[in-house]
């Protein structure tokens, strides 16, 4: 439900995987298959000659070093920046705003309802239930619009569809309080608390 860039992750992982796999296989081939060595020598020597040529033709006027080194350092710095940006994209999307509307009433200004309202209200409503071992409610911002994720941890043997129907009622009540339809995702999950807790006997 968060805004992790799923497709980007897949593409970048695939590209990086292919690169590493290719170079690794090449090294293994070089070590084990003797016929690969001459081919590698001819190919890499030609490539390396081209690169040295490039470096010697781009020297500083009057200096011994090529300015390509600076270009390379800058390019690698840019790559580092991109990698940091990629890491920063992971798992983002939690927000703290449930609804924000212009208030047409007498008082000037907007009305903003924080995510804590929904979280506290639903937590309170779910607290006393014997069939639940726990519940977490989080507010997300999915592409700019607020959404709720309700994670329920039922005890063993609880029928998930009945539980979901009852929680849907609660959410509808919450919507009538907030005065706005909120996209909600209900996730009924299992965890250590449900696995080792006592089973639900009476329903």
């Amino acid at each position, binding site marked *: *439900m968060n805004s*992790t860039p*799923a497709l980007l*992750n*897949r*593409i*970048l*992982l*695939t590209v*990086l*995987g292919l690169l*590493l*796999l290719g*170079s*690794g296989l090449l*090294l*293994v*081939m*070089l*070590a*084990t298959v003797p016929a690969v*060595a001459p081919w*590698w020598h001819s190919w*890499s*020597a030609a490539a*390396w000659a081209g690169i*040295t040529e490039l470096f010697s033709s781009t020297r500083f006027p009057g200096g011994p*070093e090529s*300015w390509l*080194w*600076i270009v*390379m*350092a800058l390019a*690698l*710095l840019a790559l*580092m920046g991109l*990698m*940091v940006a990629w*890491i920063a994209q992971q798992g983002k999307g939690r927000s703290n705003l449930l609804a924000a509307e212009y208030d047409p009433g007498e008082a000037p200004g907007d009305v903003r309802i924080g995510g804590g309202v929904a979280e506290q209200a639903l937590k309170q409503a779910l607290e006393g239930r014997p069939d639940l071992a726990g519940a977490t409610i989080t507010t997300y911002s*999915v*592409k700019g*619009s607020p*959404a709720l994720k309700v994670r329920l941890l039922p005890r*063993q*043997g*609880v*029928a*998930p*569809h009945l539980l*979901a*129907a009852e929680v849907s009622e609660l959410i509808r009540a919450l919507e009538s309080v907030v005065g706005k*339809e909120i*996209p*909600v*995702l*209900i*996730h*009924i999950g*299992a965890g250590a608390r449900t696995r080792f807790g006592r*089973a639900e006997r009476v329903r």
Partner: protein
Amino acid sequence: MSSSVDNRRPDNGSRRDNGPDMRRVLYRETHSTRAAVSVAAAALVLVLAAYGVLESGVHAVGQPAWLIEPQVAAQRIVDLPAGITPLLLAAIGGVLAMLGLIFLLNGLLPGKRARHLLAGAGVEGLPVVVDDEVIASSLARRARLAANVTPEQVMVVVSQRQVLVNVRPTSGIPVDQDRVLDAVRDELDHMLLEPAPVPRVIVAPSGVIGA
């Protein structure tokens, strides 16, 4: 049953038109995240790039290299497989290929989580995602009541397209396989899982004594 599930599919996401794309959210919830692997991959590239920046920067200002001159390193790579024992070279290559395979498979495999969508939750069709474990324990309870055995005698395995109910009867008291199957099927019909699994009941030939 599957047709009723199919009919329900389009209105899963369209109930709230103003909201975000629920289909996308549901896809996210039923497929595993690559965030951890991505962070690892990014960190790897980050470290390598940092070293590259250091060496090329040092070289650009005409200072001696920190670990190895880039030209020397390149020359050594060109000279491979000479200058290193084949065993070490193969080991390095193997490790690199392994790492690459892990990243590649993470990028390409579908990565489905053991979860189902639940279409049978009330009338308004809020999107509900259920872990297979929860489904299994609910079905096990139903099967246990139908077969009249203790919880330890029922084991349910829920996979993407199949529900397997194993029942070990109490010795001397036969278990009606069809009754258990009907009970499980009834529970599944109420859940309206998506994708819809096919239930199968296996009654063990040997019983349990003293249960």
